[in-house]
């Protein structure tokens, strides 16, 4: 148990501010293209 907690601690220390910024930037870009674009493959038709 102690080893697992130690491993988790090491892992969380590896996730630094830069990693979080990268994930946020990528998420922002994905949401941007989904939001800005309006292609249609006929997905849902009835509302």
């Amino acid at each position, binding site marked *: 148990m102690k080893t697992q907690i130690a491993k988790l601690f090491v892992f969380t220390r590896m996730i630094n501010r830069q990693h979080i910024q990268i994930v946020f*930037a990528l998420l922002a870009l994905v*949401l941007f293209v*989904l939001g*800005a674009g*309006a292609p*249609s493959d006929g997905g849902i038709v009835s509302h």
Partner: protein
Amino acid sequence: MILLGAILAGMVVGVSLASLHKRPWSVPPLRKPWLAILSFLPQLVFLYLPATRKWVPDELTAAGLIVSLVLLLVFCWFNRQFSGVWLLAWGLFLNLLVIAANGGFMPISPQTASRLVPPETLAALGNGDRFGYKDILLLPEKTHLIWLSDFLLPPVGFSYQVAFSPGDAFIAAGAFWLMVMPGKALEAPKIILK
């Protein structure tokens, strides 16, 4: 799907070019990412989430879509130093223009829609009915700025059929370019006076 494909393709090409030139590659450090996430929220609630979508009237959905697109333009302004963002912004502006001119939804003609859904599905729809997430079925003569609408299609034999607008094409190109050259800003041409 095609827009996410552009990001993925740009990432693959960007990583490959970076490793070829032995330089590091990273996702572009976009400024104010929370603004893009916030801008997408109205679309998530009004268009994408099945639980909420059916309860929202079309007028509110249309207004939400326009507000969302305007906020995304502001996001572009904060990130204008990145290469590719001008293409993204131009595509977004074209989509915003045609959506605003047609009551808050992207117009698609019945002829284009016939390539995407079976004839019986299309027969059940009338002029002005919602189609897909952001589109509205409109006859060409009732469509404003038709050359900016979802009228572009891949070749007939293509396995994935999707209708897209010129704005979407710019957005895909911008997303691709942004991932290929994540750190590079667009530079103005240098003029050397002799």
